[in-house]
């Protein structure tokens, strides 16, 4: 993660100045040295994150996909988040996501008379019982105490087993790093008190990010009082990304 990298860089420059870099580095006390990073004041026991997507509000502008790309340097042709367009009638259906919705959605001819249409943003569901963590042969995929599923890019061997195991198509092997990558809920931002980039830029408040350990949290209120759904509940992965207004056609 970027946080770790910058901490290590800070430390290294300090350590070299002190002339005892190598010794301290090998002793494993490296991160304790150097200046305190904002994220180090962060207590992951004090949070438990959840995400709500209100599909009735999404207008398919693709801002979230663009923001994610800019924030996380997502390689071309791969997606940490994407938006799907559903155009439906009682008998027929058309689903697409041109370039993941990165450039918005051009007009389309369905070839039938649609009676309803809507957009569905998708991303990693940060499941509690996630198969991706289960199958990782080296433990590079893990779930933080505050409920975020992450990949340790320094440990990942790039076998791709987690990519195969994710039922939602949320993971990919990056052609740049040759390791598994996915949505992190912008962990580098949320641990500093900010929102994930996609939530920050969403113009219609389709995407909501919240903390279940805060009593007045809007996301917590929605989960406690509204009817919410999750993707592919029959797989019992316990997604922590919840949907409002989901249609049966959405998988």
């Amino acid at each position, binding site marked *: 993660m970027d946080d770790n990298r910058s901490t290590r860089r800070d430390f290294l420059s300090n350590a070299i100045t002190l002339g005892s870099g190598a010794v301290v580095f090998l002793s494993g006390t490296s991160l304790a040295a150097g200046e305190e990073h904002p994220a180090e004041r962060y207590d992951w026991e004090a949070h438990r994150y959840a995400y709500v997507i209100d599909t009735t509000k999404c207008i398919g502008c693709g801002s979230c996909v663009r923001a994610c790309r800019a924030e996380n340097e997502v390689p071309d*042709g*791969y*997606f940490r988040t*994407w938006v*799907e367009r559903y155009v439906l009638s009682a008998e027929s259906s058309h*689903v*697409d*996501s041109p*370039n*993941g919705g990165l450039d918005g959605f051009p007009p389309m001819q369905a070839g039938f008379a649609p009676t309803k249409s809507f957009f569905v943003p*998708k991303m990693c569901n940060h499941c509690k019982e996630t*198969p991706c*963590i*289960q*199958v*990782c*042969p*080296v*433990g590079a995929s893990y779930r933080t105490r505050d409920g975020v599923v992450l990949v340790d890019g320094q*440990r*990942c*061997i*790039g*076998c*791709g*087993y987690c*990519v*195969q*195991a*994710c*039922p*939602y*198509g*949320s*993971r*990919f*092997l990056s052609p740049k*790093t*040759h*390791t598994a990558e996915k949505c992190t809920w912008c962990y580098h931002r949320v641990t500093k008190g900010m929102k994930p980039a996609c939530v920050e830029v969403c113009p219609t408040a389709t995407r909501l990010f919240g903390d279940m350990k805060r009593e007045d949290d809007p996301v917590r209120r929605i989960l406690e009082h509204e009817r919410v759904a999750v993707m592919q509940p029959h*797989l019992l992965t316990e997604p922590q990304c919840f949907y409002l207004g989901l249609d049966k056609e959405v*998988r």
Partner: protein
Amino acid sequence: MPEISGYAFPNDIHVHWSLMIVMYPYLTGFVAGSFIVTSLYHLFGKKEFQPVARLALGTSLCFLAVAALPLQLHLGQPQRGFSVMVTPNFTSAMAGFGILYSFYLVIVLLEVWFVYRKEIIEAARRSRGFKRKFYAALALWTYDTSPEALDIDHRAVTILTAIGLPSACMLHGYVGFIFGGIKANPWWSTPLMPVIFLLSAAVSGIALLILLYQVTARLQRRAVERETVQSLARWLWFFLIITVTLELLEIIMLAYEHSEEWAIIAPLLTTRLQFSFISMQMIIGSLIPFILLAIVVLLAAYLHDRIRNTLTIAASLLLLLQVFSMRWNVVIGGQLLSKSFRGLRSAYEPHLFEKEGILTAILLFIAPFILLYVFDRVLSIVEPPAPGGHEREGERSASPGQA
């Protein structure tokens, strides 16, 4: 960019598990399959397999030596590959690899040692200079060939085979488990998967031994034993029938249940996998060898040896293709369908020259045979005549009717 029919999740259009992941179960299949043959002789007393028992053991070892290479070549960060062995995450099926692979390797090495110990010692006694030192080192500088020591060897081989057989089955069953345990993918997720992998491993192993036995016999001007070929063909037919039955059962179950996954698997089989599944795996790879082997097994009494040998060779070659197609259809087929269950991507075509390409696959397939050649130079794949002259080994020239 691959073409997509229907709607695929945007990340689902990549085939991350390439030709190397097809080669991995293909190569391990030979490891398990040939060990099954060696155990039929050592453990189950099938004397007719005596001429291929050592060949089978050597084949198992040589394929085992390269079995991990395709995995290593596939990893995005190969320099970290060893961490699967040293710091495995035990909730992962893949973490079993290090344990099963190393354990089986130790068992096979030990078994090779006990099987060959007497000849190693004799070779050390016969030779001079470096060769003597080499064989002495292989014998661990112990030259005990007393009847008691040989008896211990014999018992050790039996015990090691008894441990090795389930280990080989586990090693390959585990490969099937890797796929069968992925609930996200309906084409993989079935408890039948490890069983199908294991049985098709037996098919590929026996088929390869039929070929290797006849080829090496001709190259080394040895007689091809009728009973050995006949018995191998019988076992091959048996395993082929069970394998194909299970392969078809899996699909018939899916079709009969008609649940949501069938909506994507049916077009997968009839469009993207039409050639590799229907034509190759089922018709050319299964139906034709089934008929050829049926002739060998059912009309044994009426067959000329030359015809028997030709039929078994033809059936074995086709079965090697069948098993490869099966691996391909599982590994690649499973990645052509999107987990959206709404779309299929166009066929995956590996390139000739790339890290995980066709040339690499061919080299990986050839490597065990080169190793086997070296193995034969060091430790012969043919059992030497027993003291007093073993009747089989006495027949150095081809007997009438034997090709």
